């Protein structure tokens, strides 16, 4: 109950930023569980500017969010482009990959784009504790 009340009082754009972190980290963790580390390492490297911000007080959070929002946006666009290419010509694409381009995949790709655009537009409204 306490957590729900806390979340209700939160800035929705802060929550959106946290959601974007989670999505990227979950992608990395999915592979860690099967003994493959590089997706998580890449996620950690991409997230490192936020860690830098946390320790260096002079860092401006809105610039970091700008970088992050563009990254999320690009990721969503790449996913959609890949889906489009495979829709046009799927020759040579392994079946394992081919059958992952589902409706769920499309919805998640669009979600990345929406999150990216929203974070970019509302970056000045995001405060998170690390900027204090």
């Amino acid at each position, binding site marked *: 109950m306490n957590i729900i009340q806390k979340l209700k009082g939160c800035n929705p754009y802060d929550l959106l930023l946290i959601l974007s972190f989670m999505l990227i980290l979950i992608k990395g963790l999915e592979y860690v*569980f099967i003994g493959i580390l590089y997706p998580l390492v*890449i996620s950690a490297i991409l997230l490192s500017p936020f860690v830098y911000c946390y320790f260096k007080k002079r860092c401006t959070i809105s610039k970091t969010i700008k970088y992050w929002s563009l990254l999320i946006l690009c990721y969503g666009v790449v996913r959609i482009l890949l889906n489009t290419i495979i829709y046009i010509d799927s020759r040579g694409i392994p*079946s*394992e990959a*081919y*059958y992952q381009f589902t409706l769920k995949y499309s919805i998640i790709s669009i979600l990345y784009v929406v999150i990216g655009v929203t974070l970019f537009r509302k970056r000045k409204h995001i405060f998170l504790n690390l900027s204090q």
Partner: protein
Amino acid sequence: MKSLLKVIGYLWVTLLCFEVQAQKDTLLVSEIMPLQKEIMSRLTGKKPIKDSIYIGQRASPRERELTVEFLSQQLTEIGWQLDNHHYKTTNGNPFLDLILSPASGVNISAVLPATRSSDEYVIFGSHYDSERDCPGAIDNATGVTLSLAVASQLAQLKERNVNFIIVLFDQEEDGEVGSKAYAKMLQKSKKNVYSVHTIDMMGWDEDNNRGFEIELPSLDLERFYKSEAEKFNIPLYTTKVSSSDHKSFIDRGFNTVGISEEYVKGDTTPHLHRPTDTYETVNFDFLASSTQFIFHIFKTLAQ
């Protein structure tokens, strides 16, 4: 006079043995063929694989799941102990890994223990998946039905001095994903594996010579297969084909052989990876005679 009688007696016994063996072999074929036709028709969409579900390929997750269900049931019915291997692994491409979920699949696996205590294993099997838009009759429902028929015959042997494992691999068409995952797991298990035999495509024999190819065999296995093939008067050719499941085991140092119709010699299906790789194109006589031979190989290894 006495020695002449001895010779005649010897000849008569030999002839009788041949006669009995020939009868046994015919019996084996008449037993094998209906089973293979039945399984083949289910796997290639000629008959339903479950209730009223027909599958025209074994490529999508749902079709593979139905195939796993069907083949697992077949193995249980013939008395093997099911021990399916579920795996998750890389998509084989770092870029795809950053975008997609890990590749996942099921290698259908079952054990037939030795009749007397042994820690030695002989492993054999074939991939059950197919290319997209391809019924995959020869590639590789033939390998699967051959393996199943051999498994059924092995279960009926009164004496087996080694343990057998049958593995029907998933996702061979995606770059031997299933067999790579299985070979990795097998190596970790530290099992005492004597040999691994994988069968891929065994349904085309236009020249009716019953010949087939062994791919990248170990020296031991090459010698063994060739000497046994000679007894059966079967032409056997060694090739360097590496594009199938046997490669996954060779790479991990197992005593391995790949088995296939005359792929390099050219007496091979022209329908490979096409929608025309159907039930109707399978040479069931060749499939049954190859099954007989492979069963003989394993029976000998079990002695």
